[in-house]
């Protein structure tokens, strides 16, 4: 078995996540795209774990998941707060901090 297809898949998913972050305006969808990027990197970690024959990569993926969970909790709470005050979930509307 070869690891290269996994890595390429990981790269493609990551890139799609990037483009999603850049093009979507709904904060929640943007956030989902961020999760997609995290998952793509997790795939690469797990693949490398297999390729190198140790579990360090899996441990790394595990930590990424934990941190992602914490991040999602806080991030969604922030989105909620913004929505509550501005009645909008668009990331473009929260653009007061400018020149």
């Amino acid at each position: 078995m070869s690891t290269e297809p996994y890595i390429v898949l990981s790269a493609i998913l990551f890139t799609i996540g990037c483009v999603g972050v850049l093009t979507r305006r709904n904060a929640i969808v943007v956030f989902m795209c961020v999760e997609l990027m995290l998952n793509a990197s997790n795939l690469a970690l797990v693949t490398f774990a297999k390729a190198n024959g140790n579990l360090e990569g899996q441990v790394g993926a595990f930590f990424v998941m934990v941190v992602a969970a914490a991040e999602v909790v806080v991030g969604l709470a922030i989105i909620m707060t913004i929505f509550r005050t501005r009645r909008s979930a668009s990331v473009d509307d929260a653009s007061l901090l400018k020149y």
Partner: protein
Amino acid sequence: MTAFWILAPIMVAAALGILFVRKAVHAALLLAVVMISLAVLYAALDAPFLFAVQIIVYTGAILMLFLFVLMLVGVDASDSVVETIRGQRLLATVVGLLFGLVLVVGISQVTFGTVVGLDKANEGGNVPQLANLLFSKYVFAFETTSALLITAAIGAMVLAHRERLTPKEGQAAQAARRVREYADTGRHLGPLPPPGVFARHNAVDTPALLPDGTASEASVSRVLAARGTVRSAPAMADDIDEVQRQLGQGGAARPAVDEDEEGAQ
């Protein structure tokens, strides 16, 4: 590799779908597809523990959280198609493609050597081996994540908490306010009208008719109206005319009402 070649196109398609679907709920469901597929790939890569965690934590907990927030924010908050930042979409696509190209080309230039495999590392089971690592080498990082999780939980609570700035309105005060509003703006005192109940059609998505025959917007749920699933009064106008004709009475007043409702729609 069979699983990979089956799942990889599905995952890429689902991920691309996230970019293009208009509704956030659909995006969440497509993300679930990607994540579950990933879980399967983890299993194929000799990571049974992560397989379980991916399904339970990601697909189960985190995606549920997304859906809850979507529910709170409102399913009607869909993206508008118009791009607000000039050139953002084009640039994002170009730069994103460039990035992907660079990554893929870069990866294809690297030789990855032979795959060692995890048979030896997973000796005695994947979970005990992971536990060995987590509770020895990575114990500090592990403990630190617990602090991180608690902080995140408290942070979410603090963010979600809304300070009450005014005393809670009692029943008497509420009644007084409604009467005052009626005096000032003429706002209706009583409860909103219930949805319409017709002889042949009886549902919450049908607006009630006011005494003059017009449909009452206030009688149907705002969410249903946003979804566009409300059966509008004009849609029923033909029915009414038909019924009136059957009854053999000249419904002279009807067409005017219909035109009104069309304007409102």
